[in-house]
């Protein structure tokens, strides 16, 4: 091509863009949006993954966790386990158990010195006192007031906190206890005879820890304590009860003291008490994980007493699983929504360029007449579409990574404790996306232009022959010929729809998409609301739900709840205790992590004695199972499941499968015959209030040391809602996109329709049609398409919602998919309204059509 020729084409391209800027803008806009979402979500996924991995790397998190029973140590384990671990990597030990940190459940990890495996990934704050052997570091999440707890604990470096630890780890026999009793100060009680110790610690640091990425309320956070700090605190504690001599007797550094904790160092490692009961194993080669775990499994099963509690890879821990699932989801998310927008962008490119080329027929003919080759004309159009898609790609690819990860950080902030957002731009995917986008656009352009470009110059300079789809009917002369404008407008509208099926289909798709997305967005809210409102636990029927603090959970007496007002009148009629505990449910060979809900018997202080909160029909000899778990384990009614609860292995028949949103897992009565003895320890209670002064009740209850939280049903609903907060963000996004989609698609196609009809409209104006009458056929056409599209969209709303919720599964809850009639009506009306509004806007343009100019030339 000569230089002048190139210049000419460049000018032509620029004027084309100028003339059709609205449509090009629509392409750039919707394409940019699709790319923004796609690249943005991909960036988010890779950044999220990167952050999780960098936390794992910085903390050198263990690949495999082996936890032994601290009450049942075996001196032979250490060498054996270290031998096995050394084949594949290296290992470290620590004492690891669930404790209470002030009112919160917390996992305690005690080690001799700062560990090299599973260390903090970041020390956020520390006191100068903190050394390699002297530390008490808590996770930053523990410093935040948490939704479940009403007590605000001011944890900070230098502050003192309580740790409640089980005395059973000391394994003292009655005889040994008696021996110690004589060492007590006069009048002091033997602390070893109590269930728990409460030890005081000064916080030396605050950290992020790689085992602790998930901040879900049900997964307790970790604190790390050095052995010497722990021992000093224990010593201080014992000094309160024992005489100085007594303390020295107990506390003999040589470990031959009365306490058998001296022998509690069976591993001969530097850790004395508490016994290292957890092995952290780091692999040189991650692929050896299964081999290692198999060998460990084999070792323990060959022993007379299998004293191991748990053998888990990091990815199988509940927190690890959750994060991994979320990483997977975040990638999936990138492919779910943007796809729709890509389709729309492509539809719009298709329509715009088709129209452009029809308009350009003359120009194409002229160019060919001037001697341009077909190849060069193709190239011209390809460059035009390539430039537009590239602009839209650049806009999207630059804005997406800066927008989406920060938007979704709102979700991650709630769910995880992660390092700051780092943008990891997915270069490879972005490049592929750009290539795909350009390739598809060029293909489309080729498709719509090939016929016109192949024509002889003379042919393209003649007006285009319109395909006539309608067969001319035989003449049927009517007697009366009173034509009616409405009938004609309807005919015209339907013929227009049929004679340009591609365009009609596009409007349809736009409307289907909008309605389906709206339906999906509002349906998600319906589903969540239905879940919350019908959950047997959240809506137990009680006025208030209590959760006890860990260390006090089993020392409740009825009297404690007898809260009175100033006049001495009881404010509580009675209560029903319950527990909700995470456990593993098994059926056949598969198992699934869920919860058990244990329902106690109602205890009345006054009034009605026959009250059951939640599931009053639970039988004594079987359990109910939630549909989510039943689905995961393929359990049917009358099947038997097994689980472990308070030290008992239980096989239970499932007599009913129930729907639940939050209270998933097993429902069982505390006095169920399945338990060898009735359950007496509960984690919380449902209260039956007199409703005289509920706020006072709440205040008084939260003042009680053993009450962790007191929630009204509304408060509960909010907590559960928070658990699905990420979904809410998506829901709102879905709604916004639905409207964007409808607006852009309708406006663009409407505009195109309008531009194609200008001549027709001008003709009608010349004939003396009023504006209203002129718009009739256009209106009938778009409204029909909107109506049909919206109707089809409604049927897709539900499947769409199910897909979105499946991709965004939240482990804790189970969705009972619902779309209410109101949502259907609303989605339909809303789409229709957008259709009417945009058409109204286009109708205004009819006024602006100049008859003379529009009809002057051949098209």
């Amino acid at each position, binding site marked *: 091509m000569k230089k002048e020729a190139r210049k000419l084409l460049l000018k032509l391209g620029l004027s084309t863009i100028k003339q059709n800027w609205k449509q090009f803008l629509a392409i750039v806009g919707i394409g940019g949006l699709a790319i923004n979402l796609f690249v943005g979500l991909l960036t988010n996924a890779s950044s999220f993954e990167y952050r999780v991995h960098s936390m794992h790397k910085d903390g050198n998190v263990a690949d495999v966790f082996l936890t032994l029973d601290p009450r049942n140590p075996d001196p032979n384990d250490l060498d054996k386990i270290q031998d096995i671990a050394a084949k594949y990597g290296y290992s470290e030990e620590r004492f690891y158990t669930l404790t209470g940190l002030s009112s919160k459940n917390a996992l305690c990890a005690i080690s001799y010195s700062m560990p090299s495996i599973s260390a903090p990934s970041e020390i956020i704050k520390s006191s100068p006192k903190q050394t390699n052997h002297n530390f008490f570091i808590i996770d930053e999440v523990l410093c935040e007031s948490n939704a479940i707890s009403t007590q605000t604990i001011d944890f900070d470096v230098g502050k003192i906190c309580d740790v409640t630890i089980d005395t059973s780890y000391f394994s003292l026999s009655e005889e040994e206890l008696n021996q110690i009793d004589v060492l007590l100060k006069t009048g002091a009680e033997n602390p070893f005879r109590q269930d728990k110790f409460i030890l005081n610690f000064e916080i030396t640091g605050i950290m992020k820890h790689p085992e602790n990425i998930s901040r879900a309320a049900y997964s307790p956070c970790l604190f790390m304590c050095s052995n010497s700090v722990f021992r000093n605190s224990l010593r201080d504690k014992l000094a309160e009860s024992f005489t100085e001599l007594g303390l020295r007797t107990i506390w003999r550094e040589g470990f031959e003291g009365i306490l058998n904790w001296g022998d509690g160092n069976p591993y001969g490692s530097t850790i004395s008490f508490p016994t290292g009961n957890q092995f952290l194993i780091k692999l040189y080669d991650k692929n050896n994980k299964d081999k290692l775990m198999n060998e460990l499994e084999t070792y323990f099963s060959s022993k007379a007493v299998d004293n191991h509690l748990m053998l888990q890879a990091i990815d199988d821990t509940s927190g690890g699983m959750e994060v991994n699932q979320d990483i997977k989801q975040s990638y999936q998310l990138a492919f779910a929504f943007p796809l729709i927008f890509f389709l729309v962008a492509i539809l719009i490119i298709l329509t715009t360029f088709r129209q452009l080329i029809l308009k350009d027929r003359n120009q194409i003919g002229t160019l060919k007449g001037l001697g341009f080759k077909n190849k060069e004309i193709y190239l011209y159009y390809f460059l035009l579409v390539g430039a537009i898609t590239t602009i839209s790609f650049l806009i999207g690819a630059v804005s997406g990574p800066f927008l989406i990860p920060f938007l979704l950080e709102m979700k991650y902030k709630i769910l995880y404790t992660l390092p700051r957002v780092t943008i990891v731009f997915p270069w490879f995917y972005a490049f592929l996306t750009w290539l795909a986008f350009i390739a598809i656009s060029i293909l489309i352009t080729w498709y719509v232009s090939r016929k016109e470009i192949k024509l002889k110059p003379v042919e393209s300079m003649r007006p285009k*022959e*319109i*395909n*006539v789809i*309608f067969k*001319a*009917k*035989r*003449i049927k*002369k*009517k007697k009366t*010929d009173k*034509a*009616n*404008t409405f009938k*004609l407008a309807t*005919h*015209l509208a339907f*013929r*227009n729809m049929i*004679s340009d099926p591609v365009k009609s289909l596009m409007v349809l798709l736009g409307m289907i998409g909008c309605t389906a997305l709206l339906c999906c967005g509002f349906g998600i809210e319906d589903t969540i609301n239905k879940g919350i409102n019908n959950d047997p636990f959240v809506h137990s029927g009680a006025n208030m739900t209590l959760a006890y603090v860990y260390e006090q959970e089993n020392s409740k007496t009825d009297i404690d709840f007898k809260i009175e007002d100033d006049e001495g009148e009881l404010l509580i009629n009675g209560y029903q205790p319950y527990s909700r505990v995470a456990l593993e449910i098994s059926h056949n060979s598969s198992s699934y992590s869920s919860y058990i809900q244990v329902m106690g018997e109602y205890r009345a202080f006054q009034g009605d004695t026959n009250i059951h909160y939640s599931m009053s029909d639970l039988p004594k000899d079987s359990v109910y199972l939630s549909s989510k778990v039943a689905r995961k384990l393929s359990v049917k009614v009358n099947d038997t499941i097994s689980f472990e609860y308070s030290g008992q292995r239980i096989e239970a028949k499932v007599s009913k499968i129930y729907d639940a949103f939050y209270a998933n897992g097993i429902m069982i009565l505390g006095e169920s015959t399945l338990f060898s003895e009735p359950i007496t320890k509960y984690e919380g209670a449902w209260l039956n209030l007199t409703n005289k002064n509920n706020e006072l009740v709440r205040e008084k209850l939260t003042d009680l040391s053993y009450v962790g939280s007191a929630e009204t049903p509304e408060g509960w609903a909010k907590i559960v809602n928070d658990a699905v907060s990420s979904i809410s963000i998506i829901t709102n996004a879905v709604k916004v996109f639905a409207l964007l989609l409808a607006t852009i698609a309708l406006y663009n196609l409407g505009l195109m329709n309008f531009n194609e009809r200008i*001549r*027709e409209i*001008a*003709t*009608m*104006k*010349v*004939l*003396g*049609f*009023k504006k209203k009458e002129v718009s009739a056929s256009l209106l009938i056409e778009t409204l029909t398409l909107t109506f049909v599209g919206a109707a089809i969209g409604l049927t897709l709303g539900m499947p769409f919602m199910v897909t979105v919720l499946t991709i965004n599964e939240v482990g804790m809850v189970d969705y009972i998919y619902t779309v209410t009639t109101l949502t259907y009506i609303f989605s339909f009306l809303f789409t229709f309204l957008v259709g009417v509004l945009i058409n109204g806007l286009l109708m205004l343009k009819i006024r602006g059509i100049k*008859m*003379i100019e529009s*009809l002057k030339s*051949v098209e």
Partner: protein
Amino acid sequence: MGQEEVIIKINNLSKIYNEGKENEVRALNSVSFSLNKGEFTVILGPSGAGKSTLLNILGGMDTPSYGDFIFEGANVSKYNPEELTMFRRKKIGFVFQFYNLIANLSAVENVQLASALADDPFDSYDILEKVGLAKRVNNFPPQLSGGEQQRVAIARALVKKPQLLLCDEPTGALDSKTGSTIIALLKDISKEFNISVVMVTHNAKIAECAERLIIVRDGQIDTDTVNKNPKKPEEINW
């Protein structure tokens, strides 16, 4: 023929585009004439003379800058857009050079589209029969030849029983043989229904069959003659 009835009076009509600007165009410059009912008038003139401009004003599609356009005693030049719409609807039939039929309506439906607007229209089928398209009423415009399409356009203009039929180069896109049959048809109609027809052309040969010939040049009336013996369209040859 008795007393001739005046249907249109044009007084000092001017149309000035971009008035007062550098690119001012006086498309019509103080034109005055009147037309009688049932007359077959041809407006002749070179390209750019202002023929279309005049016709568009007569058809209520455009408004003059100055002067009056009196139609049956009413001053159309003072009409607002709504009144102009009703004027077009009730009084005017318009035929374009490029037919301007609606592609997705059949021949008869194109005609019905216009008849639907009129109070007392002709029967659409009758009028199509009249223009010689009885056999093609249910065909769509792209299935018709240019001449046939122009006949449909004439039928569409006529069906409303307009007082004034305006044709802007109706034969411009047709061959001479088809063109002369169209002109014959227009003349015929003018006589049969007593409709005034104003036809614009820049073809002097066609002008020979006019009863009244107005020649426009540079936005002004050059000559205005009455032709007592107009030629029959079949006789002319261009």
